[in-house]
């Protein structure tokens, strides 16, 4: 993706060159950071975030009628405009919004919504139609499009890699901590195996495993080196989201050649006793994202970053009998960054009375949000990633 590496790779075939990279690591010149490189940070809220209590229609009687116990009262809401306000745990986000660094897209979903966590998450991660099963993720396919992709082009802060970051040709890299990842490769035997000079050109299964290992080793070295460049002094919360976003910020500031960062925040499946749980997980999200944005701003990187927050579905309009809400359909997504064309509330919230089986009807296909990111932010051909054309939104 960057000139240094690309020039180097022209020397030999892809397989050979990538197998040789580990030995070249001593010359860090190879990894000249990308200049003015834009990246996207995806924050996945796992479990189905209750969009209606996140962005609250505080002038809507239907909302209050449907949620006698769970509705956020008017005086608790953090107002955004005359109709919508944020959950009281999101004070940091309210500030981001007021600064013109946030866009809220309402009613995002897809036709024939699936209410299974797993299936709906797969649909979001693969950007498939509701009735198609795809084996690759939208961000993995984005990396596939790049010339000479490497695992570190798409990073996930997690123990295991999400489908979203798996392409046909290249898969991203998942880790929790670059230091720990690096130390795993320092185990002498793994080290020796990963670094063994290998002139294996054979395109068979052994060749595939060896090639993946060599790419892993060079990616791990690259990330370790990048992670040494900048150590954040911003006070992040000690949650796994906080720690993960700190790692991401450090890599962004170090100008890591990473197009996509991915991280999940769980605990949104609030069937029972929602109020306290939702306050907690939204509060954790708010604190971590606020610190992250502060960090990026301080380092003048916020203009190069677009943050997408989504969940696999919203929740039903009506509360249930257990002080919670059940799986729903369309919901809102957030886009944040220092360079938004159209900050604010992008579109109206879907009707609370014209429901689809008790759920909000989607008004924006989630893949339009993806094509917005691809076409207007990363300057990538969205049709090649999404398989069909979805009109981008004029947000960035």
């Amino acid at each position: 993706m960057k000139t240094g590496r690309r020039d180097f790779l022209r020397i030999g075939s892809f397989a050979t060159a990538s197998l040789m990279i580990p030995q070249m690591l001593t010359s860090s010149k190879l990894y000249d950071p990308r200049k003015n490189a834009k990246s996207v940070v995806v924050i996945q809220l796992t479990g189905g975030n209750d969009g209606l209590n996140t962005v609250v229609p505080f002038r809507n009687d239907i909302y209050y009628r449907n949620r006698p116990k769970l509705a956020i009262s008017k005086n608790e809401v953090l107002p955004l405009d005359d109709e919508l306000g944020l959950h009281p745990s999101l004070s940091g986000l309210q500030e981001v919004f007021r600064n013109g660094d946030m866009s809220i897209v309402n009613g995002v979903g897809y036709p024939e919504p699936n209410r299974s966590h797993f299936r709906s998450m797969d649909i979001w991660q693969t950007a498939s139609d509701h009735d198609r099963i795809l084996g690759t993720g939208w961000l993995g396919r984005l990396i596939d499009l790049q010339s000479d992709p490497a695992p570190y082009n798409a990073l996930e802060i997690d123990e295991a890699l999400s489908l979203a970051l798996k392409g046909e040709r290249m898969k991203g890299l998942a880790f929790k901590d670059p230091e720990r990842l690096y130390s795993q490769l320092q185990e002498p035997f793994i080290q020796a195996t990963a670094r063994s000079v290998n002139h294996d050109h054979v395109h068979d299964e052994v060749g595939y495993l060896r090639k993946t290992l060599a790419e892993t080793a060079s990616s791990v070295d690259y990330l370790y080196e990048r992670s040494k460049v900048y150590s954040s002094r911003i006070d992040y919360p000690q949650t796994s989201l906080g720690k993960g976003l700190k790692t991401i910020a450090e890599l962004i500031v170090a100008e890591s050649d990473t197009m996509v960062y991915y991280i999940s925040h769980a605990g949104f499946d609030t069937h029972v006793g929602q109020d306290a749980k939702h306050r907690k997980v939204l509060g954790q999200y708010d604190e971590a994202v606020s610190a992250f944005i502060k960090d990026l701003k301080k380092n003048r990187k916020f203009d190069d970053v677009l943050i997408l927050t989504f969940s696999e579905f919203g929740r039903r309009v009506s509360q249930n009998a257990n002080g919670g809400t059940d799986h729903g359909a369309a919901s809102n997504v957030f886009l944040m960054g220092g360079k938004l064309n159209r900050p604010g509330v992008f579109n109206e919230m879907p009707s609370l009375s014209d429901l689809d089986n008790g759920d909000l009807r989607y008004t924006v296909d989630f893949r339009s949000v993806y094509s917005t990111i691809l076409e207007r932010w990363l300057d990538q051909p969205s049709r090649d990633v999404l398989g069909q054309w979805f009109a981008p939104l004029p947000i960035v």
Partner: protein
Amino acid sequence: MTLSQKQIQHLYLRTGFGESPRAVQLRSSLSKRQLVEKLFKDSQSIEAITHVPYPIKNAREVKDVKMLRKILSSKKMVEETNVVWLNRMACTEAQFREKMTFFWHGHFATKIPMAYLMQEQNNTIRTHALGSFRQMLHAVSKDPAMLLFLNNQQNRKQRPNENFAREVMELFTLGEGNGYTENDIKEAGRAFTGWRVNRLGKFEMDHETHDGGLKTIFGRTGNFDGSDVIDMLLEKRQTANYICRKLYRFLISHKENAQFIEQMTDVFYESDYSIEELLRYMLMSDEFFAERNIGVRIASPTELLVRYLRLFKLKFKRDRIIIGAQKALGQVLLLPPNVAGWSEQNDWIDSSSLLYRMRLPLVLFGNFEMILEGKQDPEEPELSKAERALLQWRKPEADWSELFKVDMPNEESALIDQLLGMLIQSRTDSIDRSSLMRSIDGSSRENRIMSLATHIMALPEFQLI
């Protein structure tokens, strides 16, 4: 005709989860036919998993299916059943039956959090795993877990739900786009109306919601029901072909040999879908034992884990650890990702999972620690510190005696050759022998074997079976 050591290992890794070097040695004088017949003989008995008892004690108390769902729901019990099955795979002599149960579990991939019904489906599949595909398909179509998972409960005359009818054609028999139309699916959906689970968790045909009208499916018109549709699907040779392709990839190689698959299809179709006859044909063929097909399959996480469990009789202190390993590697039994089942071959490998696989033996047998957890469950809150502590790594008990009983040379280079021959099925010219040499702990015969075997299992090549 006798087989080479590698070919015998190949036979056991593909039709089961691998046998110890000693067992392989002991059987080296048997002919191919004897070995293959022994496989079937060892798998003759059908032993159901009975971990989850039938949970309904008082039938009158269960008013409806909604209540049934509540009573049966237990993710904890699903995990327990998972571990029971995994240990069964590792310990049973009926290796081929469990391996094929695993194959059909991926084929008829079902995921509902109702442990009892998942267990019953697993038993149904196990019963037919080496028997008749015709009978299995009929049984699975009436299987409560399947009907609930694919929404046939909501498939009523007044408001048909095509989900089951679609997947039966798309995934279970013909394969996507192979010889059916949208209209065939719609009409077949009508034929399955009223096939549902009753409040006691058993299959029933509800005549009130069944659509008794005429349907036109594959150009034929009649008052068809679900069984008729299944028979029509089995009449199509394409069904035999689709299953044979999948089985070829599972048992022989990811690179399909169309000519051989045609021969398999003939055998399968002409035997009226006898799985045993098909498997015997495959195992007796030269194709199965061809050098190009040995050591080319990337072991799925289950195959990898059970190979360790079986070879070393591993005993984990806590089940959560083995569940965590399944999650981290990307395959949790009884929890397939979706109705299409698990992915295959290269899809198992990314940077993170490969590194994990390489560290696994060092962790299992060495003095390393590893947090064995996978992705966060969407239905669970994030783990607290105390819960995380419960996941804390504890080294499992491992029994090396099977390996120690084999004659092995003391000379290190010869020992490397011998252990590579026993543990690695792929080509070995990619392996750096000097780093293997350095990994040897020469303090005793046992330590020499243990240290070397552990590091051989940490090689990328060990992932290939």
